[in-house]
């Protein structure tokens, strides 16, 4: 065990946390509304943190509580991208809704710090702390529009169910600790090197940990909160929730299952298969009947998590690589879709029904085109990036002989294609509704970034795929 502090390994997290505090103080001291300035500062802080992540060294710090490796860096950068795009999305939305407060970007930053710690966790205690820091800020963000019933309701619902999930997780951690005698990932892995030595109590603990994390991922059967919270929360918060925390939770799950608990792979793999199949089925079937597009995106995100978990089930390097690529494609698609959803506004009123998109291709061809790209991509149609995400996770499943999972996965993706196509149909085939209010530059920016990455991912996929490959390799090594 390396007993060194190596505190500088956490420099990106430390800097981001300090920036959050600094921006908070700055905002308080300003007389006028400083939201715009604070948002820009927050974006700057995220960029700075990203640069620090890129330039930072790898290693283990805080007496083994904290680890920095290419896998953590990869996921952290993705989290930062998701957070940055969401902060930009919130800019105009919050002004329109009358909730333009400088605390918003600060809360996003704090939540992001938690997510980055989740990516770097090397101990069950760090895992819990990171998760809670992330969640607490998110509870507040969900209820950010406090005068709105739905927003408050979604914050409360998320908090109560989230607290329950945290309890499950903590219970699982304590069981694991009790039966293995350690919370350190490395020592847990060593304790489990001989298959058959794992006590049933430890396995029950792992099941509880998976259940707790599945809640954060909104994987079936712990998904119940998702549609309501997605619908109720302010749309930029929904955008944030569907990108960055998902990445962090997936990173956490990957690391927790692959590093300390890889020895009992046989025991947890079946569970992941089950959760994955259930998520893909529910995500594609339940979305068909939705009229509210935010609820639809909630079910869509449940489905996407199901596909990502397909890559985790085989417990192989190819699988980890597949999940990482899937999350890259997913973050950009998802942020882009929410940019379009936030642009849905007529005479100052935000719209949420799918039918409100009618005839968008004639009233705003650019927006319709962007949305079409995301929808085809989410359906997994080449050459868009969503296809590659699916390609790599299914490749991992096929390589390891998980044929049932792969076949169910592709069949649900055809069902899923139906509701994505329905949105394209509404935009292109139906008669036009009155035009939306002119969209702002920030929305166009996020939408365009997402669309460009989604469309041109296929031109040079090698850097991202290669980075994911080496990160997955090192996670195993």
């Amino acid at each position, binding site marked *: 065990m390396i007993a060194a502090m190596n505190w500088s390994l956490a420099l990106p997290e430390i800097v981001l946390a300090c920036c959050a505090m600094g921006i908070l103080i700055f905002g308080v001291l300003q007389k006028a509304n400083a939201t715009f300035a604070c948002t820009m500062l927050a974006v700057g802080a995220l960029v700075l943190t990203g640069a620090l992540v890129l330039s930072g060294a790898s290693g283990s710090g805080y007496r083994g509580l904290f680890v920095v490796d290419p896998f953590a860096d990869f996921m952290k950068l993705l989290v930062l991208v998701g957070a940055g795009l969401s902060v930009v999305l919130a800019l105009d939305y919050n002004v329109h809704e009358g909730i333009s407060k400088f605390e918003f970007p600060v809360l996003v930053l704090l939540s992001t710090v938690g997510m980055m710690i989740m990516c770097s966790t090397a101990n069950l205690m760090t895992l819990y702390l990171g998760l809670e820091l992330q969640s607490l800020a998110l509870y507040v963000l969900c209820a950010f529009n406090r005068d709105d019933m739905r927003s408050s309701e979604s914050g409360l619902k998320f908090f109560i169910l989230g607290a329950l999930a945290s309890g499950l997780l903590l219970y699982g951690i304590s069981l694991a600790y009790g039966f293995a005698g350690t919370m350190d990932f490395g020592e847990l892995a060593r304790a489990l090197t001989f298959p058959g030595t794992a006590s049933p109590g430890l396995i029950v603990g792992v099941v509880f940990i998976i259940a707790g994390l599945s809640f954060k991922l909104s994987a079936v059967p712990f998904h119940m909160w998702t549609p309501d919270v997605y619908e109720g929360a302010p749309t930029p918060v929904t955008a944030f929730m569907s990108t960055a925390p998902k990445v962090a939770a997936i990173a956490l799950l990957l690391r927790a299952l692959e590093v300390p608990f890889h020895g009992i792979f046989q025991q947890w793999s079946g569970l992941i298969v089950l959760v994955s199949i259930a998520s893909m089925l529910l995500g594609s079937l339940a979305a068909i009947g939705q009229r509210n597009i935010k609820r639809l995106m909630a079910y869509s995100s449940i489905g996407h998590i199901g596909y990502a978990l397909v890559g985790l089930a085989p417990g192989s390097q190819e699988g980890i690589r597949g999940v990482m690529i899937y999350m890259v494609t997913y973050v950009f698609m998802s942020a882009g879709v929410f940019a379009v959803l936030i642009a849905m506004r007529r005479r100052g009123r935000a719209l949420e029904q799918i039918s409100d998109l009618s005839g968008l*291709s*004639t009233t705003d*061809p650019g927006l319709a085109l962007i949305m079409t790209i995301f929808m*085809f991509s989410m359906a*997994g*149609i*080449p*050459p868009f990036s969503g*296809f590659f995400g699916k*390609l790599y996770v*299914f*490749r991992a499943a*096929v*390589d390891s002989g998980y*044929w049932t999972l*792969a*076949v169910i996965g*592709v*069949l649900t*993706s*055809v069902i899923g*294609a*139906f509701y994505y*196509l329905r949105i*394209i*149909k509404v935009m*292109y*085939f139906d008669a036009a509704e009155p035009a939306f209010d002119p969209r702002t530059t920030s929305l166009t920016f996020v939408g365009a970034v997402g669309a460009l990455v989604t469309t041109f991912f*296929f031109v040079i*996929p*090698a850097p991202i*795929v*290669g980075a994911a*490959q080496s990160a997955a390799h090192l996670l195993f090594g």
Partner: protein
Amino acid sequence: MNAAGNAAGFPILSLLTWLPLVGVVFIMTVRGSEEVVARNARFAALWTSLIIFLLSLKLWFGFDPAEPGFQFQEHLTWLPDFGVDYRMGVDGISVLFVLLSTALTPICILASWESVQTRVREYMIAFLVLETMMVGMFSAQDFIIFYMFFEGVLIPMFLIIGVWGGTRRVYASFKFFLYTLLGSILMLLAVLAVWYAAGTTDIAVLMTAQFPARMQFWLFLAFLASFAVKVPMWPVHTWLPDAHVEAPTAGSVILAGVLLKMGAYGFLRFSLPMLPQASAQFAPLMFALGVIAVIYTSLVALAQTDMKKLIAYSSVAHMGVVVIGIFTFNAQGIEGALFQMLSHGIVSAALFLCVGVVYDRMHTREIARYGGLAQRMPAYAVVFMLFTMATIGLPGTAGFVGEFLVLVGAFQVNFWLALLGSMGMILGAGYSLYLYRRIIFGSITRDDLRQMLDLSPREIAIFAPLVLLTLWMGIYPSSFTGFFDATVHAMVEQHAAALHAHDFASVTR
């Protein structure tokens, strides 16, 4: 660019594939009033597609027919660690389909010149994107790249049917998309399995890879799921009549002319060379499905009251003949199938254009609404007559050569197969002549029919190349069969050798 193999330095296939997107970018940047945009979009699309067609003639003149392997190869590293690279190349099987695609696209754009008046810009963009996908698919020499183009075709076609289609366009476009997606996504799993087993997706390498017989069985079924829907084979053909009826004229033309060839091309490119044992094993099933398609859909065609639906069902029947030809595993059958695909690509495209001509004037496809057109439209009657004869398979037209060769090939396999397959020609004569008689002959009974004008110069310009090609293919077919003769013979030999090796292995075991 890393030139590999017998690469000619000039990346002609990539140019043909990606050049339409340059036109797309140009059309997207056009500004101005709706009318200006529409006019510029039309001309930009026409010029782009014409230039691409002229460029593609380089394939016609530069292709070496004696060489059975891939030519005009290109190679760019893409995902080097995974054995997936951007590889392009054409052999005798694919080269003519590239030409067919580049030739039909300008014709389609001309055919939509006046009939498409709404959202012209998007329409032209969709057609140019479609051209990229089609050409790319036929030139891809890597399985993953092939798959990307193969499925990418769905996007523009979905929009073409859904936006510019008829009254039931939403139903037809969804059916088209989901049906084909379901098939091709099962193939994706097979592609992944092949990729994993062989470590590469280079088609030239995969064609010589020998997969275990049991794996071949499953791979064949997965490929069948995809290609059978695309061909389309009975009983998964039901999306085709709907798609054809609802699509705008040019959409039907490209659907019948090129997209229907994708499935049969897939059988020839992948199933036959990569899965020889499974292909032999499944041949009886394929024959049965082919024969059913020929007889059943011909009978269904007889009962149609909608012109487009009738031609759509006749397409299914003709493609049944193609499937029979492919699985005879002899040179005549396969060459016949290829020739039939090409001739069907020209003739059925022309027939849909013929329907489009009268539809543009009367806005109905009901056969009963017409009659006696020969009196008012003599030129149209002649053109229609020629293509009707070609679809029946009259000697001297394109349709004859393919069907004849397939039947010769089928005869070597089984007498009854040839006999049942030839029913298609008889029934085909039935429904085609019946259609022709009802539309062209008789006396004019309705006033609006008296007002109809004969072919305009634009329409003559559309039909002239198709008429020439139909006659050329019928009178001097060897200028086309010459292209694929060497490749097909090599393929047949390789197939026989693979089967023999397998038999030998099982005997010695």
